[in-house]
C-alpha cells in the first residue's frame, strides 16, 4: 500500500467539484491537508486554514504545484465566538461571497486521563471542537440554504462511540459534533444543504506522531491491520460533498479500518 504522501501525489485530477469553493478548517497538516488536496484535485477552489502562516502557505503551494487552486487564511479558532464569526466573514470574502463546501476538520485531541486534563486544554477542546463548528455553520449554512445548495462535513471520531480509559473531553466533543451533524441535517437539509460526518479511525498524522507506537498497537488488531491514512478520510469527504451523495443526510461514514464495528477473534 502506498504511503499517505505517495497516494496524495498520485490522486487523479478530475472536475467533479469544479466551480465550487471549499473551506477546510485545520488544513495546514494531517487529515485536513489531505482533504484540501483531494478536494483541489477534483477542481474545487480550496481555502486552506491554519494557525501557522508558513505551514498554511506550504499547503497552498503544494496544491498549486499540483495544478489546483487554493488560498491561505490564517486564524486561531479557539479564542472566542466573535473571532470565529469574523473568520467566517473573511473566509466568505476570500471565496468571493460564495462558499459551497465547509469541512469542520480543525480539532485538538488531548488524550489524557480525566484528572490530568488542564483547564486551558479543557477550554480549548470546547472552543475549537464544538464552539467553532457551531459558529461557522451558523454563519455560513444560511447562505447555502438560500442558494438551495451546499455541503458540510464534520470530522468525527470512532472514539465518540466507545468508552476508552482516557480522553473523556475529546471524545465527548466528537460525540457532540456528530450530534450537531444530525441536527443540522434536519435543520438545513430540506433546503439543499447536505450535512454529514466522516469519522476516522486511528489515523497517523503529524499531530499524533509521538503516539505512533500506541496507534500501531491499536490498529494491529483491526481488519485493516494498520492505521488509517489521512488520504483515505479525504476520499470519503470528497464523496460526501459530491453530487453522488445526494441521498446522504446526517450520516456517519466510518473510515476506520474496521475498528468501530468489528472484532477479529
Amino acid at each position, binding site marked *: 500500500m502506498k504511503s499517505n504522501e505517495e497516494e496524495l501525489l498520485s490522486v487523479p485530477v478530475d472536475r467533479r467539484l469544479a466551480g465550487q469553493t471549499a473551506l477546510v478548517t485545520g488544513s495546514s497538516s494531517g487529515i485536513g491537508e489531505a482533504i484540501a488536496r483531494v478536494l483541489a484535485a477534483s477542481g474545487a477552489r480550496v481555502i486552506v486554514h491554519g494557525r501557522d502562516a508558513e505551514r498554511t502557505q506550504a499547503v497552498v503551494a503544494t496544491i498549486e504545484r499540483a495544478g489546483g487552486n487554493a488560498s*491561505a487564511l490564517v486564524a486561531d479558532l479557539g479564542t472566542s465566538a466573535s473571532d470565529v464569526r469574523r473568520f467566517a466573514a*473573511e473566509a466568505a*470574502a476570500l471565496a468571493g461571497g460564495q462558499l459551497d463546501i465547509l469541512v469542520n476538520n480543525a480539532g485538538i485531541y488531548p488524550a489524557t486521563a480525566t484528572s490530568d486534563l488542564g483547564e486551558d486544554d479543557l477550554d480549548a477542546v470546547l472552543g475549537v471542537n464544538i464552539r467553532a463548528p457551531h459558529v461557522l455553520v451558523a454563519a455560513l449554512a444560511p447562505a447555502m440554504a438560500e442558494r438551495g445548495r451546499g455541503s458540510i462535513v464534520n470530522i468525527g471520531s470512532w472514539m465518540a462511540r466507545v468508552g476508552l480509559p482516557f480522553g473523556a473531553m475529546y471524545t465527548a466533543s466528537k460525540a457532540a459534533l456528530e450530534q450537531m451533524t444530525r441536527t443540522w441535517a434536519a435543520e438545513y437539509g430540506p433546503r439543499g444543504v447536505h450535512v454529514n460526518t466522516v469519522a476516522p479511525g486511528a489515523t497517523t498524522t503529524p499531530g499524533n506522531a509521538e503516539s505512533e507506537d500506541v496507534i500501531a498497537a491499536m490498529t494491529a488488531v483491526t481488519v485493516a491491520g494498520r492505521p488509517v491514512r489521512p488520504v483515505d478520510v479525504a476520499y470519503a469527504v470528497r464523496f460526501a460533498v459530491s453530487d453522488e451523495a445526494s441521498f446522504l443526510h446526517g450520516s456517519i461514514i466510518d473510515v476506520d479500518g474496521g475498528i468501530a464495528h468489528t472484532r477479529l477473534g
Partner: protein
Amino acid sequence: MLDRREPFGAESTALEVVDGIDLHDRTAVVTGSGSGIGVETARALAAAGAAVTLAVRDMATGNRVAADIRASTGNDAVRVAFIDLADIRSVRSFADAWSGPLHLLVNNAGVMDLPEQRTPDGREMHFAVNHLGHFALAQGLHPAMRAAGGSKMVSLSSSGHASSGIRFDDLFFDRDPYDTGLAYGQSKTANVLFALEATRRWKDDGIAASAVMPGGIWTNLQRRWDPALLADMKRRYPTKTVEQGAATSVYVATRAELGVGAPAYYEDCHPANVVAAIQGGVHGVLPHALDPAVADRLWEVSEWLLERSR
C-alpha cells in the same frame, strides 16, 4: 512563498532597499512627503537618481525638506508642489500642471484619528483624504503614468484596515454614529482595494499597484493620540524608525513584481499573509480588503463621487 534569500525585512531601511537601483530618467511623486515616512521615501528615490516631486500641503515645510534631500543625496531634481487631498480642485490643479511621463506614484499622505470632520464636499475626512483624494490624483495622472510605459503606484495602507470594510450604505457616517477607528479602517481598506482594482483596470497601460503596511512607526500621524495610549502602544507593539517605515514603500516601488494576480499588500518588504485577524498587532491582510467584487464597486462609487465634485 517567502523567498528566504530575499535580503530585505522589517529592519531594512529605505536607503538599503535602493542600494544598487538606478532611477535616473525616472520621475516620482510622493504625497505627504513633508514629514514622517514620506520624507524618507522621497529621499531614497532621490538617492537612486529619480526626479522626485514632493506633493505637500505645507509648502514652507516642503521646501525645507526638499533642500535637505538635495543636500543629503546630491540630487538637484527634487521639487515641491502644493496639494490638498481634501480638496478635489487642488488635486486636479496638481495633475493638470504635471507634464511628461510619471513612473512612480506613492500615495503616502494620510490622516488618522480625526474627530468628525468633513470636506467642503461634505465627505468624511479619512475617506476623502486617504482614499478619494488619491483616487482623484491617480485618475488625473493616469495619462502621465500610461505615457511612462511601465509605471507603479504604491498605496499606503495599514493593519488598521482590519477594523472596517467599505460601508457602502453609509460611507460618510450620515446614518451611524461617527467612529474614528471605523473611519480610518474603511479608508485603509479602500487603499488596498484601489491598488487591486487599478492593477486590473490599467493592466494594458503598463500600470501596476500594490498596497503597503509600513509598520508601526510613530510620526505626526499619531499626533492627536492620548500620550498614555501612545506610550502603551509603543511598549506592546514592534515599532520602526521612519527610515525602516519607508522601506516597504520603496521596495514595492523599485523591486517588487506587481501585476494582476500578484500580491496586493506588502509588509516588511515581503507579501503579507492573508489572515482572519491581525497577528501580533501589525501583521497580515484580511480578505475583505482583497475582494475583487468590492474593489470593482468601490471604483465605480469613487468615480461617481468625483463626478459630483465638479
